[in-house]
């Protein structure tokens, strides 16, 4: 006799857990099924080298929604986000503002200090930085509500689902013409073109534009990459709870706090419970069957797995009509990033600013020039990993020492680009894993030569590994390319952007849905609220 639940949730990633918590909070009998032995999906902490704990994949908190932190009381369940101050960009000899020895560009949260630093490079840029910052905060304030909107279908004859958009349109009308123009630019321009309007300092533009391409198969000069520049500022205005930072205990710490909250609210969470199939009767989902044959019935099935896994792998072939299935096959993943996690017995030493110091406590951005960034993308376009990759390096142990034995450190390197589809002449990622890792170490060594001497152990994650381990199709960390045509009412499939699917009682709640990827939790929350609303529950959406 199979167990019966109100809701079964496929996947114990942060979105799955958030859905579970909200559903349990509303009194639904809820169970989460996680394939792996650990919770968190891509937001997971694991001990890779004995004594060294890593945020294996996702490595910073980006825009974790304050309402979730509040609603689920996450701090009481162990959530603690530590400050990540500043971005340090080491530069090669000759690329600096001063001559004689390599230089660096170092921006910190202290606005005054950053402006002084920029003045070293360009008076204009120092001034523009003020104006730019203000404008972006205004933009962020305007656009932020979109993270909480359930996208309506513009071709829908029923206008009601579009009402939230009307609200957005009204506030758009209240912006000044310049603000409106800048907003349109943010939605349509490349990060590089957008920044060119304000700044002349190349490493500054290179480093700022980097945030526009993280996780995408686009370059800083690709139209549509400017929008993500806003995310940084959205974080800033998220207020009391820090939306950007390093979670204590790694990103797995975030997942565990959500899991703890979900359990406290009555949700059941099972690990090593891989789902083999979603069960359907007629046009309804009725539950799931695990790989060991166990059946679990539920009146609602939420999948936080990506669109491809959910629709093409977990559903019985033929369940979906051909045209929808074709749309799903069109949905682009194109994983473009890798991860190299390194255990070291002392800190890296940067030629341009030797010794330990504050500059190592923030993000260390290997983005010395716009051309380096763009060439890194060019390599990937033709199926090879970047010869001089962009690296976003974090040393979590400087703010969270418990992640490593005393005095030792863990280094997290997010690397772009590493295209999922390699040029056939290179073989498979299994043949190239270590070569890719070496490329990353070589790139670091250009700026911090001691890196090779301090390595105790390293873990190299290629897009293929991310697909295998985290179940993310093609290793896309956002469960689907964040390209313009795959956002909002088009995500993941036009007409099905509202977490519903063609199969009744089957819901999508992962990053394949609006508002996309990142450790936000917005998808899981919105999906859960839609499920509740479909059951006639009154739910207030902020």
């Amino acid at each position, binding site marked *: 006799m199979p167990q019966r639940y109100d809701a079964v949730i496929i996947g114990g990633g942060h979105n799955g857990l958030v859905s579970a918590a909200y559903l349990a909070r509303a009194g639904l009998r809820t169970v989460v099924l996680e394939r792996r032995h650990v919770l968190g999906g891509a937001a997971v902490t694991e001990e890779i080298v004995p004594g060294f704990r890593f945020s294996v994949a996702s490595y910073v908190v980006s825009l974790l929604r304050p309402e979730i932190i509040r609603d689920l009381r996450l701090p009481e369940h162990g959530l603690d986000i530590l400050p990540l101050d500043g971005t340090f960009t080491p530069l090669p000899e000759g690329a600096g503002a001063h001559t004689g020895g390599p230089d660096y560009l170092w921006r910190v949260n202290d606005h005054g200090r950053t402006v002084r630093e920029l003045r070293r490079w360009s008076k204009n840029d120092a001034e523009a930085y003020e104006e730019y910052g203000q404008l972006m905060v205004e933009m962020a304030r305007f656009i932020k509500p979109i993270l909480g909107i359930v996208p309506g279908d513009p071709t829908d004859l029923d206008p009601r689902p579009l009402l939230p958009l009307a609200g957005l349109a009204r506030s758009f*009308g209240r912006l000044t013409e310049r603000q409106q123009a800048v907003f*349109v630019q943010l*939605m349509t321009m490349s990060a590089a073109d957008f920044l060119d309007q304000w700044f002349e300092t190349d490493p500054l533009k290179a480093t700022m534009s980097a945030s526009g391409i993280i996780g995408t198969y686009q370059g800083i000069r690709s*139209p549509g990459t400017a929008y993500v520049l806003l995310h940084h500022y959205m974080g800033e205005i998220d207020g009391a709870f820090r939306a950007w930072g390093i979670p204590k205990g790694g990103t797995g710490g975030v997942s565990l706090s959500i899991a703890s909250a979900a359990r406290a609210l009555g949700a059941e969470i099972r690990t090593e419970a891989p789902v083999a199939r979603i069960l359907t009767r007629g046009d309804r989902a009725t539950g799931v069957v695990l790989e060991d044959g166990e059946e679990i019935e539920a009146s609602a099935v939420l999948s936080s797995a990506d669109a491809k896994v959910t629709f093409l792998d977990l559903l019985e072939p033929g369940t979906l009509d051909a045209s929808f299935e074709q749309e799903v096959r*069109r949905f682009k993943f194109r994983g473009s990033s890798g991860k190299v996690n390194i255990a070291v017995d002392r800190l890296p030493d940067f030629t341009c600013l030797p010794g330990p110091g504050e500059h190592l406590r923030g993000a260390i951005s290997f983005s010395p020039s716009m051309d380096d960034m763009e060439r890194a993308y060019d390599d990937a376009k*033709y199926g090879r990993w970047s010869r001089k990759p962009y690296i976003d390096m974090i040393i979590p142990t400087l703010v969270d020492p418990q992640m490593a034995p005393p005095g030792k450190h863990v280094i997290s390197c997010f690397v772009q680009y590493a295209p999922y589809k390699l040029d056939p002449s290179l073989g498979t990622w299994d043949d190239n894993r270590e070569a890719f890792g070496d490329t990353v170490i070589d790139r670091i060594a250009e700026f911090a030569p001691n890196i090779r001497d301090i390595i105790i152990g390293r873990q190299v994650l290629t897009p293929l590994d991310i697909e295998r381990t985290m179940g993310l199709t093609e290793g896309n960390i956002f469960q689907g390319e964040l*390209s*313009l045509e795959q956002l909002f009412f088009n995500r993941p499939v036009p*007409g099905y952007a509202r977490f519903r699917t063609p199969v009744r009682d089957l819901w999508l709640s992962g990053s394949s849905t609006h508002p996309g990827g990142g450790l936000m939790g917005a998808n899981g929350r919105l999906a859960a609220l839609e499920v509740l609303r479909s059951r006639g529950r009154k739910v207030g959406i902020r």
Partner: protein
Amino acid sequence: MSTTSGYDAIVLGAGHNGLTAAAYLARAGRSVLVLERRDRVGGSVDTVELAPGVHAPAVAHTVGRLRPAIARELDLKAHGLTLIAPDVRAFAPQPDGRGIALWQDTAATQASLRAWSEVDAAAFAEFDTRVRSLARFLADLGEEAPPDVRDPGFGDALMGLRLGRAFKGLGRDGGRTILRVLAMAVADFVGESFETDPIRAVLAWRGVRHTAMGPWSAGTTKVLLDDAAGSDGGASGETVYARGGPGALADALAAAARAAGAEIRTGAEVVAVTSVDGRATGVALASGEEITARAVVAGMDPKRLLTTLVDPVAIGPSLRWRASNIRTPGKVAKVNLVLDGLPDFPAAADDQRLLRGRILVGMTGIDALERVFDTTKYGDLSDHLIVEATIPSLADPTLVAEVTEGTHVLSAHVQWVPATPRDGTWDDHREELGDAVLRTLESVAPGLTGRVQARQVLTPLDLERDYGLTGGHPLHVEPGLDSFFAWRPLLGHARYRIALDGLFLAGSGAHPGGGVTGVPGRNAARVVLDDLRRRR
């Protein structure tokens, strides 16, 4: 300094849009003066005498996107315009000696594609239908002045309704499709229908032509659909010549304008738009002469207009800053050749018909296009380029009628070249560019170089200097998603009224954008007339 006065409207620039606007204004009974800096009308719609008695398209080489309604309403036929449309639209010879031919007749195109792939041949019909229906929506969009997104009024609501109807006309699937594909990279758009790389490249080409984007750039699908809008181009694209060269279209437009009473002065360079209290009052010429008018209608690109002709104080720092950031990265060039005989294209065998349309060279695959595009990002000149060539003298012998039998002209639209070379200026690299183009043509027409009697190379710098295109951009403003519809060229200034009261934009920098369509000129004229009526 003298002052001439008394015009309802002064049109700056006698390009095809300026002339179209002038013609419509004059036909409405307005007194119109057209001022052209160059010694002849036409702007980029220009015929050049490459050698004594040998005529060729200078910049634009086809005119098939001209809206039929405009040709009809202005009776351009009566004013001397004869259009020639060969059956073949495009032919893409491949290095291996094979070729892809796109014909006016879909079945013929499919027959050509079948040699490459049964699947692609079958897919073409459906693709062509889709392109046509999506393009029809954009054509409807193009007929309208975009709504005012600042504070929508009654007219905007009406337009919204019309657009809504046009949108509904697409049907639910069509509606979803256009919302999905407009912002898409054209490489993905063609990739959804076709499996053969050369076929993908050939059909994607119009999505990047004249732009500073590559096939993997978001929004290039919109450019492709725009190119198909308002003409019978469909997926194959149009190929229509003006008999006697593109200049013949300009001459016909000028004749139509004059017949309706417009005055046209060439060799008259405008150095300033005069204004009082935020209202345009006329223009000042290089000669020192000032001419007043109730409306000033600019055919040139908005960046030039707003950053060099309009008083900075009058438009204010914010708008001027925005204008100075209008993107005009010209990454195309033009090479025109006189040949002492028809070059031999092995891929065409001896079927001369194939050479009458646009000859697409270097389009061996999507990545082949993208790689050439890549070089321009770093200021490098690729040693092989992407070329759309025409041999208009095949379809229009009048171009070479005065010279020895067998002489031909080849017009090569060249893409992508750096906007500015990494070192020096284009003046230092002009011949280098010419040689690269000949190398490219040689790859599909061995021996062509030996037939060259004369050559003209127009770099982006020449396009800027000789034709007044800022940055050398043939479309005035890069047609990216950031310069589209209600925000082309600038949000708040997309409705042909621009910057000052009484100042209007009628050129390619306005909605619906560049290409020889005449639509911006016609739409602008409508707005100007409306404005003159209100102010009576």
